[in-house]
């Protein structure tokens, strides 16, 4: 009798121990991914911080590398297959950005895409820099492609390639790519306000 109770409970344990997991098959796209909105109290540099939270995200840094090699994914690993800047920021002659990346994301392949897909020019490298260094570089005409503050604001808030960061599509494994930590409209407002208020870069 005792033995059978023991066996019975063992079976129960096995059953309850069984995990029922779900899976969407090969390609998953969850569009309900919403970034957390940080509430902060009266941060004097709130606009700057929101903007930099976005800029520090892999969606931005990955295309502003410090070594001519585009980076991929949230861990910022070097682009697979030895892809590099080439002579014109678009890769090599027969394997360039447009060989795989088109004007839109591709849900079949998980390859991201947006208009003007390319690396930022070498002098605009951000990878490895601090928030402050990136902000300085961004506002420095020598390192920002000769842009005025107004033009920089335009790049940051209107350029389709930049806006792609909030619609980055799905990865090769079918799961959604991470978006920047600040919602797009909030980010746009923050950038505009920061520029309008003199683009002050705090010490820390």
């Amino acid at each position, binding site marked *: 009798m005792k033995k059978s109770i023991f066996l019975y409970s063992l079976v129960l344990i096995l059953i309850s121990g069984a995990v029922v997991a779900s899976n969407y098959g*090969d390609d998953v796209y969850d569009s309900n991914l919403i970034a957390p909105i940080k509430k902060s109290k009266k941060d004097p540099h709130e606009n700057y911080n929101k903007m930099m939270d976005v800029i520090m995200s892999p969606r931005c840094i990955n295309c502003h590398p410090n070594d001519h090699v585009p980076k991929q994914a949230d861990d910022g690993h070097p682009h*697979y297959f030895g892809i590099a800047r080439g002579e014109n920021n678009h890769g090599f002659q027969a394997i360039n950005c447009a060989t795989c990346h088109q004007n839109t994301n591709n849900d079949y392949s998980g390859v991201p895409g947006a208009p003007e897909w390319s690396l930022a020019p070498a002098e605009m490298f951000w990878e490895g820099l601090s928030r402050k260094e990136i902000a300085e570089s961004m506002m420095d005409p020598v390192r920002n492609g000769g842009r005025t503050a107004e033009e920089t604001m335009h790049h940051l808030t209107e350029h389709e390639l930049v806006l792609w960061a909030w619609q980055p599509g799905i990865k090769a494994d*079918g799961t959604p790519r991470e978006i920047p930590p600040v919602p797009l409209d909030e980010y746009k407002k923050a950038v505009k306000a920061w520029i309008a208020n003199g683009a002050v870069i705090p010490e820390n």
Partner: protein
Amino acid sequence: MSKAKKLSRRKFLVRGGLGTVGVLALGTYVFRNPIRRSILKMVETLPPSYMGSGTEANLWFELTQENKVIFHSPKVEMGQGSFTSFAQMIADEMDVRLDQIEVVGAATKTGIVDVLSTGGSLSVGSLWQPLRELAATMREMLKIEAAKKLSVEVSSLTTNDGVISNGLKTITYAEVAYGITEWNIPDTPELKPLSSYKFIGKPVKRIDLASKVFGDPIFGLDAEMPEMLHAAIIRPSKIGATFNSADTSKAAQMPGVVKVVQIDDWVAVVAESYAQALAAKRTIKVEWNILKEWTEKEMREMLRVGKGRLMITQKEGDAIDEEDDELVSMIFTSPIGAHAQIEPNGALADYNNGDITVVLSTQVPGKTQEFVADALGVDKDKVNIIPAYLGGGFGRRLNTNHAIQTVQLSKAVGKPVKYIFTRKEEFQNDLFRPPTHHIMKGKLGSDGLIDSLEHHYASGDVAIGAIILPGLLNDVLGTDIGAMRGGNIMYDKIPNHRAEQWHTTLPFATSWWRSLGLLANTFAVESFIDELALKAGKNPVELRLAQISKEGNQKRIYDVIQLAAEKGNYNDTPMNGRAMGFAASTDSNSPAAHVVEVSIENNQIKVHKVICAFDCGFVVNPDQVRAQCEGAIIMGMSASMFEKMTIEDGELTPTIYGPYDMALMKHAPKTIDVHFIQGADIPLPVGEPPMGPIGAAVANAVRRLTGKRLTDLPLKL
């Protein structure tokens, strides 16, 4: 002319004269371990033998009106070039030109397929004798009929380029065959002397070259049938996951979807196009039962020397005393390997009132036929498996039972269905190369030579559990003969040497992967020998040569070691930032040795040069044997230096090229020289043996360059 049999019809159907001795026949004699070991040794050195179903009157050759010979090959072509070698044999014995021969994979309904598989690097060797005999017999049959048609004596006839002549009158093979319904089959004629062959032994171009350069639709996934539909099947990602339930409500409404099919424990979408099937598949939510979430660590703990089933596969002299102060010991490992062949698996199937046709890339048309017939409850002769050219095999297609599901889908929708795996499914539902764990133990004698050497190794399934071998074989032999490849010590003059296999079945499928255990076993054994040579202060080539006999089969190993060292100018001292590495192996009776030259660039191992000496007996096509060596060397580098599957979150990963790091153009050595020794007068295995030494050779070079002994594959600094 005696024993002439009457066989009917236009099918040219030649049979008989086929040797069917194979490894399976040996099982019955094996009972005790010492005998087992000698059998295992025999298995390693048996000449290749043909295992075809040669007793049925089936199609071998066809003659077309254009005077071309179509050979229905019992073996499939997966890149190894065997179709070309078959054409060479036929051309020389049937007296036709290469461009008069077409080779196709035999379909199970009409042709003779190898009852086991295409694999083991056995295609050319196993058909060497029977195919030439068949071709010669066919030539004589044609001459007999030609003599009748031309009203001349058979003995006055000669044959050339598919034309029969007595010097005055001529007739083509096709003209002879026309209208003949009964053939006289003479005794097997004597084969021509090797020296008289025009094609055999010469570097002829692959006969499938044009098809492959101009993009002809020759592969399994290229097949078409009228009104064909397309299917995607959902497969689990987690190890050990079983089907619980599926919500398919959205999928049925998706554009182009013909039917969502749920059979037993799997779900599929059949749609008008493959893209539509994929899009609909994305909307299906499957609940899986997962009893256990496996980790890499747990798997590694299962798979180690001392765990699982032990079989001593080699035992000479005494075991090493564990307390011996002179004992040297090292641990080596290799990871899970994926096949990663570029053509995904799939099949095109038609179920038509119990008549079944399947076109696919498979190494086992015969077994696939059996399994499909069983699953669908029809007679075997109702199932026609048509093997296409394979977009890579490497052992992955030694189980193509997805053909069953494809037939079931065709039955469910009443039309032909083409099914294709996604790449993620390929990576997660592979039959992987098992990971391995090795403990090497050794001891030098007072003369500085190796006195004792032991290889203890643990592996997952290779041959055990495979559909092409009956379970009986493994029980009888008591060992996994696939995992064993390269596991035994070939240095017979080491007084005490042994090999012990520990076998464990892992929670995911592992099986055949080009060269089986050879790559990992040779890596462990040959790395360790290099280490012992360093300890002894001896040149590693001289040490090897001192410990191997110069007699019998061992001489062939001795000779390749010597030739590779000589052609590669092997020097054990690094120079100008480069070092050489040496390693050798023998597999399926074909010894190979490599000298490699490496440097370190940007903290990466760079292989500049590989010099290979190889004895695969008689070389039928030097150009393609060379190609196999080049490919085996680079694929072996890829597996030894880059590739690795791991378990994360209960899943096998990665699931795509790139993250599954493989050798690319930039990693290929700029020099690969291959030197042949013909140590046997028959063709011996080619495709796998040259893979053996490459991992160890690279590791040995790195050791000499950096002082660092790399003991885990893939090799990382």
